[in-house]
Protein backbone atom coordinates (compact mmCIF):
# COMPACT_ATOMS: atom_id res chain seq x y z
CA UNK A 1 0.00 0.00 0.00
CA UNK A 2 1.42 3.40 -0.90
CA UNK A 3 2.44 5.83 1.86
CA UNK A 4 1.01 9.25 2.57
CA UNK A 5 3.53 11.06 0.40
CA UNK A 6 2.98 8.86 -2.62
CA UNK A 7 -0.77 8.87 -2.21
CA UNK A 8 -1.09 12.62 -1.84
CA UNK A 9 1.15 13.28 -4.80
CA UNK A 10 -0.87 10.83 -6.86
CA UNK A 11 -4.05 12.65 -5.83
CA UNK A 12 -2.57 15.96 -6.88
CA UNK A 13 -2.59 17.35 -3.35
CA UNK A 14 0.01 19.96 -2.42
CA UNK A 15 2.44 18.20 -0.08
CA UNK A 16 4.76 19.39 2.63
CA UNK A 17 7.92 17.55 3.58
CA UNK A 18 10.25 18.63 6.37
CA UNK A 19 13.81 17.73 7.11
CA UNK A 20 15.10 16.40 10.40
CA UNK A 21 18.84 16.21 10.96
CA UNK A 22 19.64 13.44 13.45
CA UNK A 23 21.69 14.49 16.47
CA UNK A 24 25.29 13.69 17.35
CA UNK A 25 23.99 11.49 20.10
CA UNK A 26 23.05 7.93 20.98
CA UNK A 27 19.98 9.15 22.85
CA UNK A 28 16.72 8.61 20.96
CA UNK A 29 15.28 11.46 23.01
CA UNK A 30 17.60 13.90 21.27
CA UNK A 31 16.18 12.87 17.91
CA UNK A 32 12.61 12.84 19.13
CA UNK A 33 12.93 16.35 20.58
CA UNK A 34 13.64 17.68 17.10
CA UNK A 35 11.07 15.41 15.48
CA UNK A 36 8.33 16.54 17.83
CA UNK A 37 9.03 20.17 17.03
CA UNK A 38 7.96 19.54 13.44
CA UNK A 39 5.51 16.68 14.06
CA UNK A 40 2.20 17.31 12.38
CA UNK A 41 3.67 19.97 10.09
CA UNK A 42 4.40 17.75 7.13
CA UNK A 43 3.17 14.74 5.20
CA UNK A 44 6.59 13.10 5.36
CA UNK A 45 9.89 13.79 7.07
CA UNK A 46 13.32 13.55 5.47
CA UNK A 47 15.89 12.08 7.80
CA UNK A 48 19.32 13.17 6.62
CA UNK A 49 22.26 10.81 6.16
CA UNK A 50 25.37 12.28 7.80
CA UNK A 51 24.55 15.63 6.25
CA UNK A 52 27.45 17.88 5.22
CA UNK A 53 29.55 14.76 5.80
CA UNK A 54 29.22 15.07 9.56
CA UNK A 55 28.72 11.93 11.65
CA UNK A 56 25.30 11.78 13.24
CA UNK A 57 22.80 9.17 14.33
CA UNK A 58 22.01 7.03 11.29
CA UNK A 59 19.21 7.90 8.94
CA UNK A 60 17.67 4.45 9.35
CA UNK A 61 17.50 4.84 13.14
CA UNK A 62 15.95 8.28 12.74
CA UNK A 63 13.40 6.86 10.30
CA UNK A 64 12.39 4.15 12.75
CA UNK A 65 12.06 6.74 15.52
CA UNK A 66 9.83 8.77 13.18
CA UNK A 67 7.65 5.73 12.60
CA UNK A 68 7.34 5.25 16.36
CA UNK A 69 5.89 8.77 16.48
CA UNK A 70 3.51 8.07 13.64
CA UNK A 71 5.52 10.29 11.28
CA UNK A 72 6.16 9.00 7.75
CA UNK A 73 9.90 9.11 7.08
CA UNK A 74 11.90 9.69 3.91
CA UNK A 75 15.20 7.91 4.33
CA UNK A 76 18.10 9.78 2.74
CA UNK A 77 20.95 7.58 1.54
CA UNK A 78 24.14 9.05 0.15
CA UNK A 79 26.57 7.18 -2.07
CA UNK A 80 29.48 8.68 -0.18
CA UNK A 81 29.37 6.27 2.75
CA UNK A 82 27.92 3.08 1.32
CA UNK A 83 28.58 0.75 -1.56
CA UNK A 84 25.93 -1.22 -3.44
CA UNK A 85 26.01 -4.03 -0.90
CA UNK A 86 25.34 -1.74 2.02
CA UNK A 87 22.71 0.32 0.22
CA UNK A 88 20.68 -2.68 -0.90
CA UNK A 89 20.94 -4.33 2.49
CA UNK A 90 20.01 -1.15 4.38
CA UNK A 91 17.02 -0.61 2.13
CA UNK A 92 15.79 -4.17 2.66
CA UNK A 93 16.16 -3.63 6.39
CA UNK A 94 14.48 -0.24 6.26
CA UNK A 95 11.59 -1.63 4.22
CA UNK A 96 11.24 -4.48 6.72
CA UNK A 97 10.89 -1.86 9.46
CA UNK A 98 8.27 0.12 7.55
CA UNK A 99 10.27 2.72 5.64
CA UNK A 100 9.18 3.14 2.04
CA UNK A 101 10.36 6.57 0.89
CA UNK A 102 14.02 6.77 -0.07
CA UNK A 103 15.86 9.85 -1.30
CA UNK A 104 18.97 8.95 -3.30
CA UNK A 105 21.87 11.39 -3.01
CA UNK A 106 25.52 11.70 -3.96
CA UNK A 107 26.32 13.35 -0.62
CA UNK A 108 28.53 16.29 0.21
CA UNK A 109 32.23 15.60 -0.08
CA UNK A 110 33.77 14.46 3.20
CA UNK A 111 36.10 17.46 3.18
CA UNK A 112 33.14 19.56 4.40
CA UNK A 113 32.50 17.57 7.53
CA UNK A 114 34.03 16.32 10.74
CA UNK A 115 35.82 13.34 9.18
CA UNK A 116 37.92 15.00 6.48
CA UNK A 117 40.42 12.13 6.59
CA UNK A 118 37.77 9.56 5.68
CA UNK A 119 37.94 7.46 2.52
CA UNK A 120 34.76 7.91 0.52
CA UNK A 121 32.98 5.12 -1.30
CA UNK A 122 31.26 6.29 -4.50
CA UNK A 123 30.92 2.74 -5.78
CA UNK A 124 27.74 3.95 -7.47
CA UNK A 125 26.40 7.46 -8.03
CA UNK A 126 22.94 8.64 -7.05
CA UNK A 127 21.50 7.87 -10.49
CA UNK A 128 22.84 4.34 -10.28
CA UNK A 129 21.51 4.09 -6.73
CA UNK A 130 18.07 4.81 -8.19
CA UNK A 131 18.59 2.15 -10.87
CA UNK A 132 19.57 -0.42 -8.25
CA UNK A 133 16.69 0.38 -5.89
CA UNK A 134 14.14 0.66 -8.67
CA UNK A 135 15.10 -2.80 -9.85
CA UNK A 136 14.58 -4.14 -6.35
CA UNK A 137 11.20 -2.46 -6.21
CA UNK A 138 9.90 -3.20 -9.68
CA UNK A 139 11.48 -6.56 -10.43
CA UNK A 140 12.04 -7.93 -6.96
CA UNK A 141 15.68 -8.48 -7.85
CA UNK A 142 19.00 -7.54 -6.41
CA UNK A 143 21.50 -5.85 -8.71
CA UNK A 144 22.94 -8.80 -10.59
CA UNK A 145 19.60 -10.54 -10.92
CA UNK A 146 19.08 -12.62 -7.79
CA UNK A 147 15.44 -12.87 -6.73
CA UNK A 148 14.22 -11.41 -3.49
CA UNK A 149 11.76 -13.41 -1.41
CA UNK A 150 9.90 -10.16 -0.99
CA UNK A 151 10.50 -6.95 -2.94
CA UNK A 152 10.65 -3.71 -0.95
CA UNK A 153 7.71 -1.40 -1.54
CA UNK A 154 9.61 1.78 -2.34
CA UNK A 155 8.80 5.33 -3.38
CA UNK A 156 12.03 6.75 -4.74
CA UNK A 157 13.17 10.33 -4.87
CA UNK A 158 16.13 12.38 -5.96
CA UNK A 159 17.52 15.84 -5.45
CA UNK A 160 17.91 18.61 -8.01
CA UNK A 161 19.75 21.88 -7.95
CA UNK A 162 17.76 24.37 -10.07
CA UNK A 163 20.67 26.81 -9.93
CA UNK A 164 23.45 24.42 -10.88
CA UNK A 165 25.69 25.34 -13.78
CA UNK A 166 26.01 24.31 -16.54
CA UNK A 167 22.20 24.28 -16.41
CA UNK A 168 21.79 22.08 -19.48
CA UNK A 169 24.11 19.45 -18.06
CA UNK A 170 22.21 19.46 -14.76
CA UNK A 171 18.94 19.05 -16.64
CA UNK A 172 20.34 16.03 -18.49
CA UNK A 173 21.28 14.48 -15.18
CA UNK A 174 17.87 15.16 -13.71
CA UNK A 175 16.24 13.50 -16.71
CA UNK A 176 18.46 10.48 -16.09
CA UNK A 177 17.47 10.34 -12.43
CA UNK A 178 13.83 10.22 -13.41
CA UNK A 179 14.51 7.62 -16.09
CA UNK A 180 16.31 5.64 -13.40
CA UNK A 181 13.25 5.58 -11.15
CA UNK A 182 12.91 8.85 -9.22
CA UNK A 183 9.23 9.68 -8.66
CA UNK A 184 9.68 12.78 -6.57
CA UNK A 185 12.32 15.50 -6.80
CA UNK A 186 13.27 17.63 -3.83
CA UNK A 187 15.10 20.76 -4.87
CA UNK A 188 17.80 22.76 -3.17
CA UNK A 189 16.56 25.76 -1.23
CA UNK A 190 15.05 28.47 -3.38
CA UNK A 191 15.89 32.09 -2.65
CA UNK A 192 15.49 33.33 -6.22
CA UNK A 193 11.93 32.63 -7.31
CA UNK A 194 12.32 33.95 -10.86
CA UNK A 195 15.34 31.81 -11.53
CA UNK A 196 13.50 28.81 -10.12
CA UNK A 197 10.49 29.46 -12.32
CA UNK A 198 12.70 29.66 -15.38
CA UNK A 199 14.28 26.33 -14.42
CA UNK A 200 10.87 24.78 -13.91
CA UNK A 201 9.76 25.97 -17.34
CA UNK A 202 12.89 24.49 -18.85
CA UNK A 203 12.27 21.20 -17.06
CA UNK A 204 8.67 21.06 -18.24
CA UNK A 205 9.51 21.93 -21.83
CA UNK A 206 12.08 19.17 -21.89
CA UNK A 207 9.49 16.80 -20.48
CA UNK A 208 11.89 16.11 -17.67
CA UNK A 209 9.37 16.49 -14.89
CA UNK A 210 6.57 14.50 -16.53
CA UNK A 211 7.52 11.40 -14.64
CA UNK A 212 8.14 12.94 -11.23
CA UNK A 213 6.69 15.47 -8.80
CA UNK A 214 8.76 18.55 -8.02
CA UNK A 215 8.91 19.53 -4.35
CA UNK A 216 10.42 22.98 -3.90
CA UNK A 217 13.10 23.47 -1.23
CA UNK A 218 12.59 26.15 1.42
CA UNK A 219 15.00 27.25 4.12
CA UNK A 220 13.63 29.77 6.62
CA UNK A 221 16.54 32.07 7.47
CA UNK A 222 16.83 32.68 11.19
CA UNK A 223 19.44 35.40 11.03
CA UNK A 224 21.76 37.26 8.71
CA UNK A 225 24.61 35.10 10.02
CA UNK A 226 22.68 31.96 9.08
CA UNK A 227 21.99 33.38 5.63
CA UNK A 228 25.68 34.09 5.11
CA UNK A 229 26.65 30.66 6.33
CA UNK A 230 24.20 29.02 3.93
CA UNK A 231 25.35 31.23 1.05
CA UNK A 232 29.00 30.42 1.63
CA UNK A 233 29.21 27.11 3.40
CA UNK A 234 26.48 24.88 2.00
CA UNK A 235 27.45 23.36 -1.34
CA UNK A 236 25.02 23.99 -4.15
CA UNK A 237 22.94 26.64 -2.40
CA UNK A 238 22.49 30.00 -4.08
CA UNK A 239 21.45 33.00 -1.99
CA UNK A 240 21.21 36.16 -4.09
CA UNK A 241 22.63 39.43 -2.77
CA UNK A 242 19.23 41.02 -2.44
CA UNK A 243 18.18 38.36 0.04
CA UNK A 244 21.37 38.86 2.03
CA UNK A 245 20.73 42.62 1.99
CA UNK A 246 17.18 42.19 3.22
CA UNK A 247 18.45 40.06 6.07
CA UNK A 248 21.31 42.39 7.00
CA UNK A 249 19.17 45.53 7.04
CA UNK A 250 16.18 44.00 8.84
CA UNK A 251 15.38 45.27 12.33
CA UNK A 252 14.10 41.81 13.26
CA UNK A 253 16.17 39.31 11.30
CA UNK A 254 14.18 36.19 12.11
CA UNK A 255 10.89 37.92 11.26
CA UNK A 256 12.40 38.97 7.94
CA UNK A 257 13.66 35.45 7.33
CA UNK A 258 10.17 34.16 8.01
CA UNK A 259 8.71 36.71 5.57
CA UNK A 260 11.15 35.73 2.83
CA UNK A 261 10.32 32.05 3.30
CA UNK A 262 6.58 32.75 3.32
CA UNK A 263 6.84 34.84 0.14
CA UNK A 264 8.81 32.06 -1.51
CA UNK A 265 6.22 29.49 -0.52
CA UNK A 266 3.40 31.68 -1.84
CA UNK A 267 5.23 32.15 -5.12
CA UNK A 268 6.09 28.51 -5.75
CA UNK A 269 2.62 27.36 -4.72
CA UNK A 270 1.23 29.32 -7.62
CA UNK A 271 3.44 27.49 -10.13
CA UNK A 272 1.68 24.69 -11.97
CA UNK A 273 4.71 22.39 -12.00
CA UNK A 274 5.25 22.46 -8.23
CA UNK A 275 3.69 19.64 -6.23
CA UNK A 276 4.77 20.68 -2.77
CA UNK A 277 7.40 22.26 -0.58
CA UNK A 278 10.29 20.77 1.31
CA UNK A 279 11.21 22.71 4.43
CA UNK A 280 14.79 22.42 5.63
CA UNK A 281 14.90 24.11 9.02
CA UNK A 282 18.70 23.77 9.38
CA UNK A 283 18.90 24.87 13.06
CA UNK A 284 15.50 26.53 13.25
CA UNK A 285 13.06 23.75 14.04
CA UNK A 286 10.79 26.02 16.04
CA UNK A 287 10.34 28.19 12.94
CA UNK A 288 8.67 25.50 10.86
CA UNK A 289 5.26 25.50 12.50
CA UNK A 290 4.75 29.30 12.47
CA UNK A 291 5.96 29.42 8.87
CA UNK A 292 3.40 26.85 7.77
CA UNK A 293 0.73 28.58 9.84
CA UNK A 294 1.30 31.92 8.11
CA UNK A 295 1.14 30.27 4.73
CA UNK A 296 -2.00 28.32 5.59
CA UNK A 297 -0.31 24.99 4.99
CA UNK A 298 -0.81 23.58 8.44
CA UNK A 299 -3.26 20.81 9.10
Amino acid sequence: MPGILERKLADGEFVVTAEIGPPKSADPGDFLKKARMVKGCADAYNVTDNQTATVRMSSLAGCVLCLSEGMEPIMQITCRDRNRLAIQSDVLGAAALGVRNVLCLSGDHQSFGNQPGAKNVYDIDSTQELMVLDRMRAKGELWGGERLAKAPDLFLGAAANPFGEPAEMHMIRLAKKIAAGARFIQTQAIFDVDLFERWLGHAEREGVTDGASVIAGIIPLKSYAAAKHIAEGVPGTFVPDRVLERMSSAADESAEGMRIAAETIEAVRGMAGVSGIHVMPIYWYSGVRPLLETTGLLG
Partner: protein
Amino acid sequence: MIVGTRKPFEEIIALLGEPVGNRILVLGCDSCMAVSLASGEAEVKELIDELREHSDALGLGWEFEGRTLKRQCERKYEERVSELIDGSDAVVSLGCGVGAQMLSENFPLANVVPAINTSNMGAPEARGIFKEKCMGCGDCTIHRTAGVCVLARCSKALQNGPCGGTTDGKCEIDPETDCAWATIYDSLKRRGRLDDVRGLVPPKDWSRSHSGGVRTVRVG
Protein backbone atom coordinates in the same frame (compact mmCIF):
# COMPACT_ATOMS: atom_id res chain seq x y z
CA MET B 1 52.99 9.68 -15.96
CA ILE B 2 53.12 9.09 -12.22
CA VAL B 3 52.99 12.30 -10.22
CA GLY B 4 54.67 12.74 -6.88
CA THR B 5 56.45 15.22 -4.67
CA ARG B 6 59.49 14.99 -2.48
CA LYS B 7 58.82 14.62 1.22
CA PRO B 8 59.84 17.55 3.42
CA PHE B 9 63.47 17.44 4.49
CA GLU B 10 62.61 16.97 8.18
CA GLU B 11 60.57 13.89 7.35
CA ILE B 12 63.38 12.40 5.28
CA ILE B 13 65.78 12.98 8.17
CA ALA B 14 63.33 11.33 10.56
CA LEU B 15 62.94 8.32 8.23
CA LEU B 16 66.71 8.04 7.86
CA GLY B 17 67.05 7.82 11.61
CA GLU B 18 70.54 6.80 12.56
CA PRO B 19 71.94 4.76 9.70
CA VAL B 20 74.23 2.02 10.99
CA GLY B 21 77.04 3.45 8.91
CA ASN B 22 77.76 6.73 7.21
CA ARG B 23 77.47 5.93 3.50
CA ILE B 24 74.34 7.45 2.04
CA LEU B 25 73.24 6.83 -1.55
CA VAL B 26 70.60 9.10 -3.04
CA LEU B 27 68.95 7.41 -6.00
CA GLY B 28 66.93 9.48 -8.43
CA CYS B 29 64.88 8.33 -11.38
CA ASP B 30 64.89 9.94 -14.76
CA SER B 31 61.31 9.04 -15.66
CA CYS B 32 58.05 10.27 -14.16
CA MET B 33 59.47 11.61 -10.92
CA ALA B 34 62.01 13.63 -12.90
CA VAL B 35 59.15 15.17 -14.89
CA SER B 36 57.48 15.76 -11.53
CA LEU B 37 60.56 17.85 -10.69
CA ALA B 38 61.40 15.59 -7.81
CA SER B 39 64.08 13.09 -8.85
CA GLY B 40 66.25 14.25 -11.74
CA GLU B 41 69.97 14.95 -11.43
CA ALA B 42 69.32 18.44 -10.12
CA GLU B 43 66.99 17.19 -7.39
CA VAL B 44 69.40 14.41 -6.41
CA LYS B 45 72.13 17.00 -6.00
CA GLU B 46 69.82 19.30 -4.09
CA LEU B 47 68.92 16.61 -1.57
CA ILE B 48 72.57 15.63 -1.14
CA ASP B 49 73.45 19.27 -0.46
CA GLU B 50 70.75 19.51 2.18
CA LEU B 51 71.79 16.23 3.79
CA ARG B 52 75.44 17.28 3.77
CA GLU B 53 74.61 20.52 5.51
CA HIS B 54 72.69 18.59 8.13
CA SER B 55 75.52 16.11 8.58
CA ASP B 56 78.12 18.89 8.84
CA ALA B 57 76.04 20.83 11.34
CA LEU B 58 75.69 17.80 13.59
CA GLY B 59 79.12 16.36 12.87
CA LEU B 60 77.64 13.07 11.61
CA GLY B 61 80.37 12.46 9.04
CA TRP B 62 78.03 11.15 6.38
CA GLU B 63 79.44 10.47 2.92
CA PHE B 64 77.31 10.77 -0.17
CA GLU B 65 76.85 9.24 -3.58
CA GLY B 66 74.14 10.26 -5.99
CA ARG B 67 72.87 8.54 -9.14
CA THR B 68 69.86 8.95 -11.37
CA LEU B 69 68.56 5.73 -12.92
CA LYS B 70 66.73 5.69 -16.22
CA ARG B 71 63.84 3.89 -14.55
CA GLN B 72 64.07 3.00 -10.90
CA CYS B 73 61.21 0.52 -11.23
CA GLU B 74 63.25 -1.80 -13.48
CA ARG B 75 65.74 -4.26 -12.17
CA LYS B 76 68.09 -3.91 -15.15
CA TYR B 77 68.72 -0.23 -14.37
CA GLU B 78 69.00 -0.87 -10.65
CA GLU B 79 71.58 -3.57 -11.26
CA ARG B 80 73.85 -1.09 -12.98
CA VAL B 81 74.45 0.49 -9.57
CA SER B 82 74.29 -2.70 -7.53
CA GLU B 83 77.76 -2.23 -6.07
CA LEU B 84 76.89 1.22 -4.87
CA ILE B 85 73.65 -0.03 -3.35
CA ASP B 86 75.37 -2.95 -1.64
CA GLY B 87 78.03 -0.62 -0.28
CA SER B 88 75.58 1.90 1.20
CA ASP B 89 74.20 2.11 4.70
CA ALA B 90 71.09 3.87 3.50
CA VAL B 91 69.56 4.28 0.04
CA VAL B 92 67.35 7.33 -0.15
CA SER B 93 64.94 6.69 -3.01
CA LEU B 94 63.66 9.59 -5.07
CA GLY B 95 61.71 7.14 -7.19
CA CYS B 96 57.95 6.79 -6.99
CA GLY B 97 56.41 4.22 -4.67
CA VAL B 98 56.99 1.61 -7.35
CA GLY B 99 60.65 2.47 -7.79
CA ALA B 100 61.31 2.44 -4.04
CA GLN B 101 59.54 -0.92 -3.69
CA MET B 102 61.51 -2.46 -6.53
CA LEU B 103 64.75 -1.39 -4.83
CA SER B 104 63.69 -3.16 -1.64
CA GLU B 105 62.56 -6.18 -3.59
CA ASN B 106 65.69 -6.51 -5.68
CA PHE B 107 68.12 -5.62 -2.88
CA PRO B 108 66.66 -7.31 0.17
CA LEU B 109 69.50 -6.20 2.42
CA ALA B 110 69.39 -2.54 1.40
CA ASN B 111 68.04 0.03 3.86
CA VAL B 112 65.72 1.86 1.50
CA VAL B 113 64.32 5.19 2.64
CA PRO B 114 61.36 6.36 0.51
CA ALA B 115 61.64 10.11 0.05
CA ILE B 116 58.74 10.65 -2.37
CA ASN B 117 55.03 10.91 -1.71
CA THR B 118 53.51 9.31 -4.80
CA SER B 119 50.22 10.94 -5.64
CA ASN B 120 48.53 9.95 -8.86
CA MET B 121 48.58 9.27 -12.57
CA GLY B 122 48.42 12.65 -14.18
CA ALA B 123 50.08 15.14 -16.45
CA PRO B 124 51.80 18.50 -16.28
CA GLU B 125 49.50 21.35 -17.27
CA ALA B 126 51.98 24.13 -16.71
CA ARG B 127 55.42 24.20 -15.19
CA GLY B 128 55.10 22.78 -11.70
CA ILE B 129 51.36 22.10 -12.03
CA PHE B 130 50.31 18.46 -12.33
CA LYS B 131 46.73 17.29 -12.53
CA GLU B 132 45.30 13.87 -11.84
CA LYS B 133 43.87 12.12 -14.92
CA CYS B 134 43.45 8.39 -14.33
CA MET B 135 42.94 6.07 -11.37
CA GLY B 136 43.72 2.82 -13.13
CA CYS B 137 40.23 1.31 -13.08
CA GLY B 138 41.23 -1.36 -15.58
CA ASP B 139 38.29 -0.75 -17.90
CA CYS B 140 38.57 2.56 -19.71
CA THR B 141 35.32 4.30 -20.63
CA ILE B 142 36.42 7.86 -21.34
CA HIS B 143 34.93 7.68 -24.85
CA ARG B 144 31.56 8.25 -23.15
CA THR B 145 32.60 11.52 -21.57
CA ALA B 146 34.52 13.57 -24.11
CA GLY B 147 37.76 11.83 -23.22
CA VAL B 148 37.57 13.10 -19.65
CA CYS B 149 37.85 10.50 -16.90
CA VAL B 150 35.05 11.05 -14.41
CA LEU B 151 36.47 8.46 -12.03
CA ALA B 152 39.72 10.35 -11.55
CA ARG B 153 38.64 13.90 -12.30
CA CYS B 154 35.29 14.14 -10.51
CA SER B 155 35.85 14.23 -6.76
CA LYS B 156 32.91 11.85 -6.30
CA ALA B 157 33.51 9.69 -9.40
CA LEU B 158 30.00 10.51 -10.59
CA GLN B 159 29.29 8.69 -13.82
CA ASN B 160 25.94 10.16 -14.80
CA GLY B 161 26.45 13.88 -14.45
CA PRO B 162 27.47 16.65 -12.08
CA CYS B 163 26.55 16.90 -8.42
CA GLY B 164 24.71 19.92 -7.11
CA GLY B 165 27.88 21.44 -5.71
CA THR B 166 29.61 22.61 -8.86
CA THR B 167 30.10 26.39 -9.04
CA ASP B 168 31.41 28.36 -12.02
CA GLY B 169 32.95 25.29 -13.56
CA LYS B 170 34.80 24.42 -10.37
CA CYS B 171 34.44 21.47 -8.03
CA GLU B 172 32.75 21.89 -4.67
CA ILE B 173 35.86 20.68 -2.87
CA ASP B 174 37.87 23.75 -3.82
CA PRO B 175 37.71 26.67 -6.26
CA GLU B 176 41.04 25.72 -7.87
CA THR B 177 39.86 22.31 -9.04
CA ASP B 178 37.97 22.08 -12.31
CA CYS B 179 34.65 20.25 -12.18
CA ALA B 180 35.05 17.29 -14.54
CA TRP B 181 31.43 17.60 -15.61
CA ALA B 182 31.77 21.26 -16.53
CA THR B 183 34.78 20.31 -18.65
CA ILE B 184 32.83 17.48 -20.27
CA TYR B 185 29.86 19.71 -20.96
CA ASP B 186 31.96 22.42 -22.60
CA SER B 187 33.73 19.91 -24.77
CA LEU B 188 30.60 18.03 -25.87
CA LYS B 189 28.65 21.23 -26.43
CA ARG B 190 31.41 22.56 -28.70
CA ARG B 191 31.25 19.39 -30.77
CA GLY B 192 27.47 19.16 -30.75
CA ARG B 193 27.70 15.80 -29.01
CA LEU B 194 25.73 16.26 -25.79
CA ASP B 195 23.79 13.12 -26.70
CA ASP B 196 26.88 11.16 -25.65
CA VAL B 197 25.98 11.71 -21.99
CA ARG B 198 22.20 11.36 -22.15
CA GLY B 199 22.05 7.61 -21.68
CA LEU B 200 21.95 5.96 -18.27
CA VAL B 201 25.30 4.59 -17.22
CA PRO B 202 24.66 1.53 -15.02
CA PRO B 203 26.78 0.70 -11.96
CA LYS B 204 30.37 0.08 -12.95
CA ASP B 205 32.02 -3.31 -12.71
CA TRP B 206 34.94 -2.41 -10.46
CA SER B 207 36.37 -5.93 -10.47
CA ARG B 208 39.13 -4.92 -12.85
CA SER B 209 40.15 -2.06 -10.56
CA HIS B 210 41.97 -2.42 -7.25
CA SER B 211 38.59 -3.39 -5.79
CA GLY B 212 39.02 -6.75 -7.53
CA GLY B 213 42.19 -7.36 -5.52
CA VAL B 214 45.86 -6.94 -6.32
CA ARG B 215 46.27 -7.00 -10.07
CA THR B 216 48.77 -8.81 -12.24
CA VAL B 217 48.85 -7.88 -15.92
CA ARG B 218 50.03 -10.62 -18.26
CA VAL B 219 51.02 -9.70 -21.78
CA GLY B 220 51.69 -12.15 -24.60
